[in-house]
């Protein structure tokens, strides 16, 4: 039984990383204001949101299975307060930091109508810190973190997010960049 928990804990962690990667890339596409072939803007926005929710579900499963798993030595306090763990406290702590950031991002997203766009946007920026922290946690803490196949998976995710981010800061990123050039808002 605990063998199964251990396996599921690791797989769910990797799945969570995969879906968060996809969500980050879709979020950047959403911000550009551009539709994709066959996908209108509102669909991209919805897929971005739904994949982020899926990633969060896998993240919760990842954390819960490892709390239930006696070998992982993970206490409930370790899911919220970083660097207190008994096993690889630094690498595990990074996971805790990422988990806390996601918690904040998800809550401000779900309640953005009441919290206002400003707070929502400000907290959403933390995604750019959360994602690399989560990646480093997966390599440092994961049982297979330094296996070739896992590193290949991380490289593919990394290339996607980094290239999307470079596009994000480029001058022609926004759909309306050209039309609005010359007048700052």
């Amino acid at each position, binding site marked *: 039984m605990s063998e199964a928990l251990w396996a599921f804990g690791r797989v769910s962690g990797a799945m969570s990383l995969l879906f968060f990667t996809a969500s980050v890339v879709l979020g950047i596409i959403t911000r550009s204001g551009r539709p994709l072939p066959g996908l209108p803007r509102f669909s991209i926005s919805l897929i971005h949101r739904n994949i982020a929710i899926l990633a969060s579900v896998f993240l919760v499963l990842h954390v819960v299975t490892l709390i239930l798993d006696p070998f992982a030595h993970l206490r409930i306090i370790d899911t919220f307060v970083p660097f207190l763990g008994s096993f690889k406290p630094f690498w595990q702590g990074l996971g805790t930091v990422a988990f806390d950031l996601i918690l904040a991002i998800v809550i401000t997203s779900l309640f953005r109508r009441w919290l206002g766009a400003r707070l929502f946007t400000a907290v959403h920026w933390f995604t750019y810190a959360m994602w690399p922290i989560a990646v480093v946690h997966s390599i440092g803490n994961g049982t297979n973190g330094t296996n070739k196949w896992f590193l290949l998976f991380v490289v593919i995710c990394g290339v996607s997010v980094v290239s999307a981010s470079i596009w994000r800061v480029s001058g022609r990123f926004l759909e309306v960049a050209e*039309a609005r050039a010359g*007048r*700052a*808002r």
Partner: protein
Amino acid sequence: MTATGSGTVPNPTSAPEGPVRLFAAGADAGYSAHRETYGHLEIVKGGPGLRAELERSGLEGRGGAGFSTARKIDAARQSVSDRMFPASAVVIANGAEGEPRSIKDSTLLRHSPHLVIDGLLATAALVGASRMYLYSSPESLGALRSALAERRDTRRITLVQAKETFISGEASAVVNAIENGIALPTDRTVRLTTSGLRARPTLVHNVETLAHVALIARFGGDWFRSEGVGGDAGTRLVTVSGAGQRERVLEVPGDARISDILEAAGVSTSVVSAVLVGGYHGTWIPADDLSVVLSKAALAPYGGRPGAGVLFLLARDECGLQVTASITRYLAEESAGQCGPCLYGLDALATLMERIASGRGDHGLRREAERLGLSLIGRGSCHHPDGTAGLVQSALSAFASDVEAHLTGRCRRTARV
């Protein structure tokens, strides 16, 4: 709401005769000269008297929009009585005067501050307001401060300095400036009279409007109507400027013709080729039509209105398109940048006008300016894009033959600005 007596106590002093009403107490009138001229105004709370006299007077706002003063006050009173949790109203005297070609409000505040204060107190009593604000441009602050200090009934009036921007006098910007120190218009889904300053029912009245209220409170609506006609009863302040003329403020009857006003200002209509009426959001009236009355009804066929009482003259040797292009550029620069269509649209509109005025381009430019102008109307949190589009539209029709000449590469005016 219960009526507790008449709004005002009858006044022994005789009412001013003729069109000089607001400045009857003379230059830089202090409180004693003010009372000698107009008599003391006894303010009685919440009475039906003043409300009825305002209705009878037909007074309309003198800040630009020209909305019925009685209707606006009714809306605030309605909001006060409709509320589940009581909140007293707020009255704001608006003397920001962002219009670059208008000095009538600052002139009024300098020479007749006590009429404005009387009007503010009387309006506040009418709606049961507990707080009053005097919002004014920096140049009038000194005169207002000493006027407030001269009398004892002004303790609940707070003086607030306005920013010197074009839109600082827009009603929601006034409320935003007083509440948050930010003189920018705000998005609204309810009227200020329903929920304005700190969510209270809020009346924002132009200072000239309040000065008229002070006189109507004393001498009644029928007296007010003894000048002017119909919907444009009473007198109004106008600022005449441009074409090398010194800026002048005049008080004119509501049925005065533009040509008569210019004559009274000492301007010969022969040197004028057109007049911009209302302000920078106003309407060009060509020289041939200057016999039109400066009233809402008479200007309606031109798409214009008296607005803030601005009469900006275009000299015979000036190019109306050039002047309009530079005004449009100014208005584009004065966009607060809060609303996209205004930020980008006015900039593009100014560029189009500059190209038409400079004589480069083709007939497509004119159509494009008309199309763009129309597309901006109604798409902002205030009427800045609407007013600017209106100015451009009016220039394109009033100077239609000039547009034609420019598009074929010639300006018909001898001297270009």
